[in-house]
């Protein structure tokens, strides 16, 4: 189906199903239970899953396939957000023109930055992208204030022209009249599921983005990108010009970032320069590595993982901890709470940093590798020797000729 073989099709369908049922799957605890706070099926968080998923999928096309580590991708995210908000200001709250402009501008911006940065490789490339992103960030705060509205952030004001906004038209973001913040809340038994327009809009785009990346991974172009990572010298002595390949990958991933930025602004019509800071670029690097760079599912898993636990961990406070450890004797309880305390709540970043280090040190394949190892363990016990599926890990992907 859709130009994919049976296994990829099945893989894609699973992803589609998971995405569509997210509002149910992430709401496993009844509203009345004490665990309800670990439900993640509310619109804002789900939207973030989809948006950061797109961001990470795009980043993975560059880093996962070519090995070029960009530390400046947040700049494209920011550009996408600004472009979209400007469309809101000039036209109307329909998100479509904004998203289109976001992809185009971030693509052009990526073309410019990529053209210069890709003249170097390795650490120099990382530093060049970092320098460009910091430059954009600084400019957004200073000279470009007329475009970015500086520290306040860009937003829509009532006196903005909004030429296409009809009398009595929607004053929240929407897609052809369907407001993004509209939700259908369905109470089923003790559970409560929220089906939000914004989430499904992001989800459909995320699925399309995932599908496109799947096609790129399976295409000759994707193979060339992996060849760039593997051996550039052999590439040029095989008559291939590596520069346009890496540039194309850079621009595509920049456009993904721009799209993600546009979607962020579409969910909440605001754009601030902090989205462009290099720590934000670092976040997408974390997501991709944590999930498994160079794999199809990795970046999505990484993005979901980080955003989910960011949300959960920041909710855990000492009261919750005391609740958990209440069955222990008092002294031990207090001790455990004291030990765990720095890692939860506001300490989420500490946990994230540690986790990230552990992954880089021990599990360069990320969460996907964990999954593969578990599966191998499982299948070996089941008696089928080594049925592990390396298909979704291009590093070991002997599938092309099937």
């Amino acid at each position: 189906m859709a130009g994919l073989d049976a296994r990829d099709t099945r893989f894609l369908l699973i992803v589609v199903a998971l995405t569509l049922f997210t509002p149910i799957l992430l709401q496993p605890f009844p509203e009345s239970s004490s665990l309800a706070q670990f439900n993640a099926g509310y619109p804002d968080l789900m939207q973030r899953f989809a948006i950061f998923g797109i961001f990470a999928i795009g980043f993975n096309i560059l880093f996962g396939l070519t090995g070029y580590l960009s530390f400046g991708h947040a700049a494209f995210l920011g550009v996408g957000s600004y472009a979209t908000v400007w469309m809101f200001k000039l036209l109307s709250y329909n998100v479509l023109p904004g998203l289109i402009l976001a992809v185009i501008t971030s693509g052009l911006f990526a073309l410019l930055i990529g053209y210069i940065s890709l003249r170097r490789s390795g650490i120099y490339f990382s530093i060049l992208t970092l320098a460009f992103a910091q430059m954009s960030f600084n400019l957004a705060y200073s000279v470009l204030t007329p475009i970015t509205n500086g520290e306040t952030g860009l937003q829509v004001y009532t006196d903005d022209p909004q030429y296409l906004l009809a009398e009595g038209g929607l004053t929240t973001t929407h897609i052809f009249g369907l407001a993004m913040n509209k939700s259908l809340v369905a109470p089923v038994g003790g559970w409560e599921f929220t089906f939000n327009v914004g989430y499904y809009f992001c989800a459909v785009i995320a699925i399309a983005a995932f599908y496109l990346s799947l096609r790129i991974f399976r295409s000759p172009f994707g193979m060339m990108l992996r060849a760039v990572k593997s051996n550039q010298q052999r590439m040029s002595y095989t008559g291939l010009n590596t520069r346009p390949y890496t540039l194309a990958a850079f621009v595509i991933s920049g456009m993904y970032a721009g799209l993600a930025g546009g979607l962020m602004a579409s969910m909440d019509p605001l754009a601030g320069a902090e989205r462009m800071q290099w720590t934000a670029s670092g976040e997408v690097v974390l997501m991709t590595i944590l999930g498994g760079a160079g794999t199809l599912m990795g970046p999505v898993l990484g993005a979901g993982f980080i955003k989910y636990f960011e949300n959960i961990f920041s909710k855990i406070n000492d009261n919750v901890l005391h609740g958990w450890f209440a069955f222990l004797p008092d002294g031990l309880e207090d001790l455990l709470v004291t030990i765990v305390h720095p890692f939860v709540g506001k300490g989420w970043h500490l946990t994230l940093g540690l986790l990230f280090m552990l992954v880089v040190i021990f599990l360069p394949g990320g969460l996907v590798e964990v999954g593969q190892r578990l599966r191998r363990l499982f299948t070996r016990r089941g008696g089928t020797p080594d049925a592990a599926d390396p298909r979704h890990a291009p590093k070991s992907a002997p599938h092309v000729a099937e």
Partner: protein
Amino acid sequence: MDAILLQILNGLDKGSAYALIALGLTLIFGTLGVVNFAHGALFMLGAFCAVTLQRILTFSFETVDDSRTDFLGNPLKVETPYVEAWFGPQTGGAIIDWSVPLAILFAIPVMISIGFAMERGLIRHFYKRPHADQILVTFGLAIVLQEIVKYFFGANPIPTPAPESFRGALDFGILLGFDPNVIIYPYWRLVYFLFAMTIIGGVFAFLRYTTFGMVVRAGMADRETVGLLGIDIDRRFTVMFGIAAAVAGLAGVMYTPINAPNYHMGMDFLVLSFVVVVVGGMGSLPGAVLAGFLLGILESFASMNEVKAILPGIDQIIIYLVAIIILLTRPRGLMGRRGVMEE
């Protein structure tokens, strides 16, 4: 003329910080071949050594002074630092006042130990891994370190003043025959610059005149050969990492009166320091120092109103702009050796 001089002076303190951090980065990169994204965090840890010492010195006990009352009419509670109680208010007060310079003594062993621990525990295992992995793991470490500091010291900047006698400013203009109040330069910045020069001089002398330094320099030039000579280069590299950590830490200690330290100051300086290293030439120590001062001064010039009127926003991007131009036209940097990381 006086305006130019003023900008040069203004650029010196930031330039000193850049130069010191970049010096450590280059030492580590040149000797160990490791790209250390946690180096900014070491600078930050140094600054918090000063904060810690200040906290220790001002550790107080509470007494009730019946002779005075607070605004509610209750007897006044007086906090007396133990130091003052032990050494008397005069000496004790002076010790507290001098907590930042004293923190140098405190920071050296602390930072060297941290450096040793980092190299032995983590960096060592990444010598043979790709640069991307080194960047990633040290980036993770930087996050961990800054979050730990945030946990203990909070997110707000902590004022850490210089000793009383250095708080004023020097009217530099008068010394050079200009009108008074034209070139005013805070004493502490002058101290910082001189301190930086001393450290830089010390590191260079150490590398030049000690056998240890000679081996390290040889290792920077050609690691394999030195290894073949049967010299235990790895142990020396551990020491080198400790020294680099100490240099970054001391730069942080002395910087605290200029900018109140906060947990993310390391990240802020890190990006710029990397840019400095690249401009100076990857692996070139004099290059790092030169580029540090050069970029610090350049930044200060770019923030002149006259310049900003012509090129708005130039002060925000000048360093990056220079780095990009250098990387594209002369990838080995100002003083880098030919062929070192040129690709």
